């Protein structure tokens, strides 16, 4: 089964769960005075869930007539996923997650420098004498811009300092 149909299947399942919540659980908490209203908080989600299931099923069963064109060689194609640098992409995503978790405790300056330098190193950059100064300079100037010019507080140093 093609990837787009798998996605449609997951989407239909998601709409069913969403619809279940809208049809059966949301109205229980509704105060009595609101029940006289023609429109409830659950009205729009109910419509959406029904509509979503219909659209999802159309995609899932391929009811829509589409002329399938050959993917062009320059386009990215998930069937050739193993030929791509999947490891690098996943490692970078993991770095983003670590950055998100470390931003507050480690402070902006440290975590950003490590993120920028680490990201470049991960992608195969080995010229440390260029890489580190660039990362440091960029971190410093961005911190200055955000903190001083835009006036948004970013904790610069680790929490224990």
């Amino acid at each position: 089964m093609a990837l787009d149909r798998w996605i449609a299947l997951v989407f239909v399942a998601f709409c069913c769960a969403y619809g279940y919540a809208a049809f059966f659980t949301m109205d229980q908490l509704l105060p009595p005075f609101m029940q006289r209203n023609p429109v409830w908080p659950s009205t729009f989600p109910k419509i959406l869930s029904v509509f979503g299931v219909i659209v999802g099923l159309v995609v899932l069963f391929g009811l829509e007539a589409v002329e399938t064109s050959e993917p062009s060689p320059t386009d990215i194609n998930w069937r050739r996923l193993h030929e791509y640098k999947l490891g690098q992409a996943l490692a970078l995503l993991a770095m983003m997650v670590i950055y998100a978790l470390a931003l507050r405790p480690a402070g902006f300056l440290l975590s950003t420098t490590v993120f920028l330098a680490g990201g470049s190193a991960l992608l195969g950059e080995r010229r440390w004498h260029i890489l580190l100064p660039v990362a440091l300079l960029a971190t410093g100037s961005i911190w200055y811009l955000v903190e001083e010019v835009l006036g948004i507080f970013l904790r610069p140093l680790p929490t224990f300092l």
Partner: protein
Amino acid sequence: MLEGILLGLSAALSVQNILMVVAGCLIGTFIGMLPGLGPMSIIAIMIPVAITLGDPTAALILLAGVYYGAIFGGSTSSILLNAPGVAGTVATSFDGYPMARKGQAGKALTIAAVASFAGGTIGAILLAIFAPALSSVALLFHSAEYFALMVVGLSAIAAFAGSGQVFKALLMTVLGLILATVGEGALFNMPRFTMGLMDLQSGISFITLAMAMFALPEAIYLVLDPKRSETGSSSGKIENLRFSRAEGRAMMPVIGRQSVQGFFIGVLPGAGATIASFLGYAVERNIASEEEQKEFGKGSVKGLAAPETANNAACTGSFVPLLTLGIPGSGTTAILLGALIALNVTPGPRLMIDEPDIFWAVIISMYIGNLVLLVLNLPLIPYIAKILTIPRTFLIPFILFFTLMGAYIGQNNSTELLMLVGLGVLATIFKFADYPLAPLLIGFILGTMLEDNFARSMQLYRGLDFIWERPMTLGLLILAAVLVLLPSFRAYRARLKARGVADGD
């Protein structure tokens, strides 16, 4: 109207706003040149900066400048490297790249800049004429019509944007609408679908979603496939920016036709710059004389001027539904709408009456933006093009960092960053499976308004009667259904016909 133009001039010509136009155009050109980063990613990254400016006029002017700059930058990389950064400039590379190969890169860039300038300027004049007229009509609309109009807009986007796959685009639209119901709506004062998480109480942040939909997948693609960011062989030095008088005369009628045609294609929801540029190229090739037709694809002046004029005019045209109805017709204008709402401005027919200075300043800044591109960016292009030599090992971590920063500055909350990564992975999977991402964001942004208008009409008419009692609402809803069903009906007929021919009894 004259009064409005004067008002706009006085607002747009302040020192701060001129700086914004110049900065926006330069930043847009810089980043737009990088292959793989389209105007939507750039505007998404620039939004936090624009919002912190606090002044809606300045913010919108900045973002519009970035938009123009990005498209111009996209044309530059199409011409120099045959690597269009944006779908809207693919047609530019048909004739621009051959011209650059012949050693006329400078001339090609000038033609592109002049054509863009003319397209953008004529588009802005048309916008100044049509937007006030349309918004006076739109003032007659009630919430029922607004609801129906948004349904029409969403289905038109699904019908035109999804490369022929209407239902995939519809699926994304519905997903966007569903995401918009998360959090505490103003209407009911009751948290919905938050799964008990405090962080979802205020809903999903639009900046995070925009970054995750446009900037992050592009960056991941660049990592996955290094070939995408390969800059290829630049075609020599850029010198001699002039074109001859005869070439100028050949371009004139093309520019005239394409700016009008491009503008009206841009007004249609979902159509936008890409369709306008391809159509413009095709039309000009068909009506050109036989001799000139042979030139197309080999470095024709007309073939370069047509898509460039049309895509800029279409970008201007796409502001019409945004400014008059408050309904975005493209991913880019959807992002602009989100930024405006964050700045406490509600685009729509009342914008012209309540805040005419914003409305006219944006239109005037379009002229200024086009002028800046022509007189400032063009001479700088040889230097700006140096950015194409930045190695990807430096580029990609910075793109990722800017998406993270954008989401963080907007909310000051590191949970937002985790959501960004999660949604970004989701968006990449969608992109792999050829699902269009713009309908999701447009659905998300229109979702709240759609539900508000729907609920208001339900309350006014005590139920669904508003559909039958207001003929315009019914008409618009039927139009929406036709838009969605017609393409598949026609494809179905064609398939039946093809099968009949194949059987051939």
